[in-house]
């Protein structure tokens, strides 16, 4: 196989680069090692489109900071073109004392110096009106109206689908094993054969440094940092309206409670160095998480946590307490570009896509406009979100939309079948594409039903269906198989 540009990694950054490049006539292949897109850091975060509620933000000397605020005005139009949910909720940074007030005043003036208007200090009464259910132990807040929520996995899938519509080739379950350089070409060895290419965009997420090392271009050091996120039952969805940020009381922590585009609340805390790839949630992290979120919502019962997860971010310069991103062409190897934002990758994605395109041009990629580029992509129908009349029409057209498979999120068989058509092959794939299994029973009800539909649509035996590809089969034996083996 041969191509001009190979993108390694189908997370939000790889996807946004693929979609940017599909505006041009370049020959592009994207490879993803997992069974579906956005399963790394893209899926394990709080889904916030931020521009830096942290008091350290808005520093033009930092590349990452710039990518984040440049992306902010691009995100909503992007989501509209791609038909993915986007909800502007605004952010309230809680201020508890004068020391914090001072830090937020500096933040606000830095933002204004950059021409980013909109930040507004609010007093405690206004804060209580805006958020009556949260802690009263504040002296006010800093309101940023721009902050929004997205669904990063759906955004990633939409970007990739749109890139695909416009000519980018995509390969899943394709892991890069080795890269060699011959003449003016890379030869990339994968588990599915080798790909020859002239340019590489290394967007491999938590493996971005490993991939760079394959071409001896390790001119950056990254630290794996693990964060913890808890999801609260939708019944609490109305408790807060804005993304709420409280300055952490201990280093290495964050404290955020936010609505999501789908109606649950997320809370996130603790960012700690950890062994790469170890996405386990420890009892200690979960405990700190709960303690912290209770500083915002004092009466929160742990029974309302329907799920929690840990995710990885790769931070550059973690050792100096402030992290920078990697968006650069290798200094040693021509035509090799590495990208890794760390936090917040989703928020910085749109500007990163443009910048990588520019870097590729500088490295010598000829970019000729793709005249037939179509920026629009239509999302498959979400039955639960449609008005009643359209629900009826949909069922009349395809009866499977009237068969509810996931009771908690009201996901129909029609949506699951459509997700398979769009490329889902696993239980988690269905979950992230349709939300079946994401509700309060966490798949207790729908898992056997989804497995059955997946098997039917893929033409496989149910035994072959996996949770998330590779060795993650769900059902290991047929009924009576173990007994027969014992005879």
């Amino acid at each position, binding site marked *: 196989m041969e191509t001009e540009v190979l993108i390694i990694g189908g997370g939000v950054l790889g996807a946004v680069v693929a979609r940017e490049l599909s505006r041009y006539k370049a020959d592009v292949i994207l490879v993803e090692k997992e069974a579906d897109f956005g399963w790394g850091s893209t899926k394990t975060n709080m889904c916030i489109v931020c521009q830096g509620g942290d008091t350290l933000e808005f520093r033009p000397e930092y590349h990452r900071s710039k990518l984040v605020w440049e992306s902010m005005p691009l995100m909503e139009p992007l989501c509209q073109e791609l038909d993915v949910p986007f909800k502007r909720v605004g952010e309230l940074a809680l201020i508890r004392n004068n020391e914090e007030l001072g830090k937020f005043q500096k933040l606000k003036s830095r933002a204004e110096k950059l021409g980013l208007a909109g930040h507004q200090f609010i007093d405690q009464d206004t804060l209580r009106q805006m958020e009556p259910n949260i802690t009263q132990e504040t002296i006010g807040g800093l309101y940023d109206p721009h902050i929004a929520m997205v669904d990063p996995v759906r955004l990633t899938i939409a970007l990739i689908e749109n890139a695909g519509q416009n000519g980018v080739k995509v390969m899943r379950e394709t892991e890069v094993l080795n890269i060699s350089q011959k003449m003016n070409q890379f030869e990339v060895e994968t588990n599915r054969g080798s790909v020859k290419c002239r340019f590489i965009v290394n967007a491999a997420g938590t493996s971005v440094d490993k991939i760079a090392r394959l071409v001896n271009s390790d001119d950056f050091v990254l630290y794996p940092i693990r964060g913890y996120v808890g999801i609260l039952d939708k019944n609490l969805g109305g408790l807060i309206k804005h993304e709420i940020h409280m300055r952490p009381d201990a280093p290495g922590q964050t404290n955020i409670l936010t609505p999501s585009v789908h109606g649950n609340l997320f809370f996130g805390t603790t960012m700690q160095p950890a062994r790469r790839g170890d996405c386990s*949630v420890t009892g200690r992290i*979960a405990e700190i998480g709960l303690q912290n979120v209770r500083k915002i919502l004092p009466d929160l019962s742990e029974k309302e946590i329907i799920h929690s997860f840990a995710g990885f971010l790769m931070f550059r310069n973690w050792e100096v307490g402030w992290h920078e991103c990697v968006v650069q062409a290798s200094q040693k190897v021509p035509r090799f570009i590495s990208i890794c934002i760390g936090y917040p990758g989703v928020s910085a994605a749109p500007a990163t896509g443009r910048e990588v395109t520019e870097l590729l041009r500088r490295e010598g990629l000829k970019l000729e406009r793709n005249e037939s580029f179509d920026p629009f992509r239509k999302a498959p129908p979400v039955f639960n979100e449609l008005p009643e009349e359209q*629900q009826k029409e949909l069922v009349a057209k395809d009866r499977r939309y009237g068969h*509810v498979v996931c009771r908690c999120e009201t996901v129909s068989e029609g949506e699951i079948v459509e997700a398979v058509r769009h490329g889902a092959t696993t239980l988690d794939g269905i979950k992230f594409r349709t939300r079946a299994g994401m509700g309060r029973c966490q798949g*207790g*009800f729908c898992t056997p039903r989804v497995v059955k539909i997946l098997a039917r649509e893929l033409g496989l035996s149910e035994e072959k269906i996996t949770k*998330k590809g590779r060795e993650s089969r*769900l059902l290991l034996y047929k009924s009576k*198989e173990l007994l027969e083996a014992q005879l």
Partner: protein
Amino acid sequence: MKRSDIDVAVIGSGPAGMAAAIRAREEGAEHVLILERQEQLGGLLHQCVHNGFGLFYFEQDLTGPEYGHRFAEKVKDLGVQVLLETMVTRISADRQITAVNNREGVLCMRPKSIVLAMGCRERSRGQLNVPGTRPAGIFTAGTAQRFVNVEGWIPGKKVVILGSGDIGMIMARRLTLEGVEVKAVVEILPYIGGLTRNEVQCLHDFHIPLLLEHTVTEIYGQQRLEAVTIAKVNKDKKPVNGTEQMIECDTLLLSVGLIPENELSRMAGIALDPLTGGPVVDQWRETNVSGIFAGGNVVHVHDLVDEVSWEAEIAGASAARFARKEERKKEKKIVKPGRNIRYVVPQTISAQCDVTLYARVKDMEENVTLKVGDILSKSLRVVKPGEMLKMDLSHNQLMQLRDDEVELFIESAKRRQNG
């Protein structure tokens, strides 16, 4: 039947829903409709292929499907209307029901009365916050039960079960009979969560180790589950250092509690009791929303299917009477859970007829007296959270109640000696 003529609509067709519908018909309601989301009547009874159903209701030892079949036959005989594969998505406080099915798309109706019989769901891993990775091979016991008994698949061959609820113990036996090695049933409390009869028949008889005061402290495996660590816990349920042991397994089943399924009730503005997780009901099983009744596991989680059906019958009969606009006095006395009582159902009673109270204790205790104010006193050798208490109060006893509130409590042996 026209959708505008429905007297009683029953949501769910498990052992509660069918019993309620039948009883509503017998009580004279002409148009009774069951809304069921699955392909056939019976709810979860289909996957409960073990016996022990109907010992009290039919005085026979039946399997789940047999128990369900008897009710389903009667539903048919009595001309109860049934809409299968129909998921109710919304109920409003004025009894408007919205449902979805693959024949009509979205359907709406406004019956004269409604019986909620949605049953309960299992507590999931997310709610437990079990530390560790997120591999395949972790199921709730009920999900595994469906795979094994309905779909014909065995999830794995080395299994650890966390929690000693009834479904977990029953699956321990079921999987053992399938040739699976059940390595341990691990319970954080000093006593089992389910019935003693299941401990004996499902665990002891099959030599399955039961580890009380233990919990799972870590889960291993990136793709498929590879092992778990279990540890002993102290009185605060925290793991004790140095007691950890790793157990190699490919499957972890969770049987850590059931939660009444009340999302629809919430939409209708029905008040829920935080102690039961179900609606606050009176002795007729009416909720605070007039004309909406509830019975079975949607109200509180029962131990026995027989009790589920009996409770739902009360709701069914009351709904039928409501549909024909039968008036009844609205006086209500609150039954309050007192010492060592987790909850009481019904939460309010009146002295208009005999009442049966159901209660669950918080902790195991021996040689106690169960008391309802000063109108009932009953000596009990042992009370356990896993076994529901049931007490009948006659009309005459209830007439003795003076206050608007009566306490139900457990008096310990010690206190009696002292007093």
